[in-house]
């Protein structure tokens, strides 16, 4: 018996899509706007899904506080 628990998190970060092994022209053609030199940003959403049995004492798959601590790092 297995139950799937999914929890949603958010973080913001910037990045630039660029491959150092390719020329500037190749990078621009491959990545378009995502290759702009100063990067661009995203507000990412992350869904973490864990699986396990329901603990007969707690009725839970996993304590959400524990999951938050592990994910937070």
């Amino acid at each position: 018996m297995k139950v799937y628990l999914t929890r949603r998190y958010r973080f913001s970060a910037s990045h630039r899509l660029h491959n150092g092994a390719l020329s500037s022209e190749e990078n621009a053609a491959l990545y378009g706007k995502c290759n702009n030199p100063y990067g661009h940003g995203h507000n990412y959403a992350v869904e973490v899904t864990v699986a396990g049995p329901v603990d007969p004492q707690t009725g839970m798959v996993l304590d959400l506080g524990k999951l938050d601590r592990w994910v937070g790092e």
Partner: protein
Amino acid sequence: MDRFDHTHLNQDVENFRSRIPTTENLCREIYRLLKVRMEKECPRREVTLARIRMEETYANSFEYTE
């Protein structure tokens, strides 16, 4: 997530020094990090990591599972 939050993934994050920080690769890296942590916390594997899904924009999302 703290290690990635409000960073420039190419410049500030050791995990992406030699790998392009596409959301595909970010998804895989988050899975790898969390899997290691969970295996340490749940050595009997009673609870396991099933999937990481990431939304990059309203239009794009990525999932990674093993």
